[in-house]
C-alpha cells in the first residue's frame, strides 16, 4: 500500500520508472481480470493498453481515494463494460477464446489444472455480463461488494444476489459438463 503511494507520488512527478513499476506490478492481474470479463485475449490486451495509456495521461489529474490496485481494476472493468455494450450493438464482433493458466503451484499436474481453469473460464463466459462482472471483480480483482455496487450503480444487495446467482450458475454449468 505504502509502496503504491510512493509509486504514485513519483508517477505524478513524471518519473517513468514509477510507471514502469506500476505496469509490471499489475499487468498480469489486470490482464487476467480483463480476459475473464471479456473471454477474449485480443480485446483484453487492447483494454489493458488503453487503460494504461489513459492512466499515464492522467498523471496530473489523478486523485486516489482508495488503493491503486482497485483503482486500476475499476478502470479496466469500466472499459470492458463499454466494449461489451459496443459488441451488443455490433454482434459481428467475434470472441477469441482466452487461454488461462494456473497462477500457483499446486499438487496437481499443470495440464490438469489448466484444463480445469479453461472449463471454469468458459463457464464464467456463459454468465450474463452483470453476474460475470461481479464474480470476476470480487474473486479475481479483489473488489469488495460495496465497490462493485458503486461501479454498477446498483445496491449492495443486488450485487450480492448477482454474485450468488453467478456462482450457482457456474457450478451448475460445471456439473452439467461432468455429467454429460
Amino acid at each position, binding site marked *: *500500500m*505504502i*509502496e503504491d*503511494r*510512493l509509486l504514485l*507520488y*513519483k*508517477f*505524478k*512527478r*513524471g518519473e*517513468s520508472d514509477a*510507471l*514502469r513499476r506500476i*505496469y*509490471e506490478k499489475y*499487468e*498480469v492481474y489486470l*490482464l*487476467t481480470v480483463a*480476459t*475473464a470479463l471479456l473471454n477474449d*485475449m485480443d480485446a483484453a*490486451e487492447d483494454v*489493458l*493498453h488503453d487503460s*494504461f*495509456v489513459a*492512466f*499515464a*495521461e*492522467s*498523471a*496530473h*489529474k489523478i486523485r486516489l*481515494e482508495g488503493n491503486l490496485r482497485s483503482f486500476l481494476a475499476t478502470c479496466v472493468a469500466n472499459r470492458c463494460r463499454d466494449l461489451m455494450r459496443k459488441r451488443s450493438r455490433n454482434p459481428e464482433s467475434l470472441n477469441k477464446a*482466452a*487461454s*488461462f*493458466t*494456473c*497462477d*500457483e503451484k*499446486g499438487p496437481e499436474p499443470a495440464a490438469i*489444472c489448466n484444463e*480445469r*481453469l479453461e472449463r*471454469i*473460464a468458459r463457464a*464464467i463466459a456463459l454468465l450474463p455480463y452483470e453476474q460475470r462482472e461481479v*464474480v*470476476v471483480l470480487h*474473486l*479475481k480483482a479483489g473488489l469488495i461488494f460495496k465497490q462493485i455496487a458503486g461501479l454498477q450503480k446498483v445496491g449492495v444487495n443486488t450485487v450480492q444476489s448477482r454474485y450468488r446467482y453467478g*456462482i*450457482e450458475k*457456474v*457450478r451448475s454449468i*460445471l*456439473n452439467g459438463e461432468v455429467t454429460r
Partner: protein
Amino acid sequence: MRPVENIEKLINRLRVEPRVEMSKRNLNDALAAHKRVIGSVSSRPTIWRIIMKSRISKIGAAATVIIVGILLSMIVLDKTGAPAFGMAEVMAAMAKAEWMHMTWEYDEPNTGFELIEPEIRESWTSVNPKRNITVYNNGKVNFTEYSKDEIKAQQYDVETNLLTTRYISTGRNYSYTTIIEMVLVGIAEMKKRGATVEYIDSVDNSQPVKIINIDNIDDNNVHFKTSTIADVRTRLPIRSTVISEKQGYTTTVNIIFDYPQTGPTDIYQAGAPPNAEVKVIGQKITPEFLEMIRPYRAARESLPQQRIVVEVANDNDNSSVVSVIYTNGIKERFEQLSYIRNDTSPETEDFKTIWNWANRTIRNESGNFRIQLNDGAVVHGAYRSYFNPWTREELSLSHYGTGFLVTGLINRGWPTIKTGAFVENDYAVKNNLLCIETLREPRFTGDSKLAEAAEKTLYYIDPEHDYMCVRIESFRHPVPPPYGNTAVNVLVFDPIDIPFEPYLVTEVVQFSLTDTGHWYPSCIITTNKQSWSDPGSGWEMREKTFDIRLYIDTNPEFPDSIFDPESLPR
C-alpha cells in the same frame, strides 16, 4: 457436486500470461503518453515547491506592516503630546467600517524587489469574520479567513492554476479580532523598532486633512517611509504613499483606501478561476490519513517493550545531557543529568561500557539531576540541582498526560503525530520518504499577547527503516522570551506567514539494528537556530547544535528494585 468454495478458489487461481510483444507495446505507449503529459507541463513544480518558492508570504507580511503603520499613525501621539486622533474616535470609526479596501499602484517598475516580492493590485481586510485578501498583479491570490475553531488559508498560483487550501484547527476565538486589535499589536512592534512619526495639518481637495509621516524598519530590514493622508472628520485614511528601501533598491507604491459595504467572501470572488485545480491540506483526522499513518503507528507499537536506552547529547556550548531510561512496557524509570562537560563519552558501540559510563557520570557529576519513576499510575520524582539537595515529588500520571511513557527510543524515532496531512515534497520524494505536515496556530496569552508564533512541522518517515521518523523540520518566526510579555510580530496573525527556512532540524544520520531486528536511530543531529540565551545583558538568539547518540539493550537484566519508588534518593 462442486462446492461453492472450490469454484471460488478456482476462479481466484485464474491467470493469463501476457505476451512479450504486447507488454512492450503497452508499456512503451503508456510511457510515451506519460512523457507527453509531463512534458507539456514539465516546469510544473510540486505543491511543496509552489508553497516554498512563492513569496506571497513576504509581500503579505509587508502589506500588513504597511497597513498597520498607516493605522498606527492615527493613534500615536504627535509632537505636542496630544493624540493625533482620539483612540475612542478611531475605534468608533473603524468599528463602522467592516471592510477596508486598498488599491495599490506602483509608481515605477518594481525592479529592485521583483525577485522577492510580486506586486499587489488590491487587497481587503474585513473584521467580522476576520479575513485578509490580497490580489497580485501576476494573478496570484491570497485569502485567509478566521472562524471560531478553524483558519482557512488559501493560495491561488496562476502559473500552475493550483489552488491550495489549508485548514488549521484553532482553539482561539477570532471573533474579537478587529482591525484595532491588529493596530494595537502593530503599535508595540513599531515602538519597539523605534518608528518616528510626524503630523502635519493640511488641506486636500478643499477638505482639512492630517498628513502623517512614519519612518520604520521592519523585521526583514526593509526601510518603510509612509506618508498618509487621513480625513479629519472620519479619522480614516484616504491614501498613502509607501517608499520601501532595501539594499539600495527602492519601490514606491501609492495606496488608495475605500470602505465598501462588502468585499470578496471567498477566493473565487477575489479572482481565482473556477477551473483551478484544488489541493486541500486538511489538519483534521481523515480516514486516508489514518490509513497512511497506520504502519508508522504499528512500527511504534512493535518496538521491544523491555529495554534500556542510554542517550548522550552534547551541544556546541560544552554542555551535555546524559539520560538512562529503563522500560518494561508498563513501568519506566528515567534518569537524566545536565552538566557542563568536562570529559567526553567513551567511543564505543558496546552497550555495557556506555551504560556503566553513564551511571558513573550521572552519579559523580555535579549538575541538574532528575529521576522520574512512572509506575503506571503515579510519577515519583526526585530532583537535585547544582546547589540544592534532593527534593521529592509525587504526581498522578494524569498530571503529565498520556504521552508520559514515550521517552527515549520512541520520541527520538517515532514521535507522536496526532494529525496532519501527507504532502508532496522534493526532499521526501528524492529520498523515498513519506512526509507529514502539521500546522499549529500561534498561541496567545489570556490578554492576547503572543506566546508562540504559528509553527509548521514536517515529519519525514522512512518506510525502509521500520517507518522511523528520520527528519523533522520546524518553521516559525522567532519569539524572544520571556514568553507572553510582548506582542512581537504582526506576521504571526496569518498562518501563511511562516518562514521559508526551518529554524529547527532534527535528522537521523545513523541507523542501527537492535538484537530483535528493529531499526533505531543511533545518531541524531539537531540544529536549533532559535535557541535563546540570557548572558545577563538581555535575551540573545543563537544557533545551538546537539549531537545525540542512542545505545540500546533490548534484553536487559534490570537492576534490583529499579522500579521501586523507595529506591529514589531523598
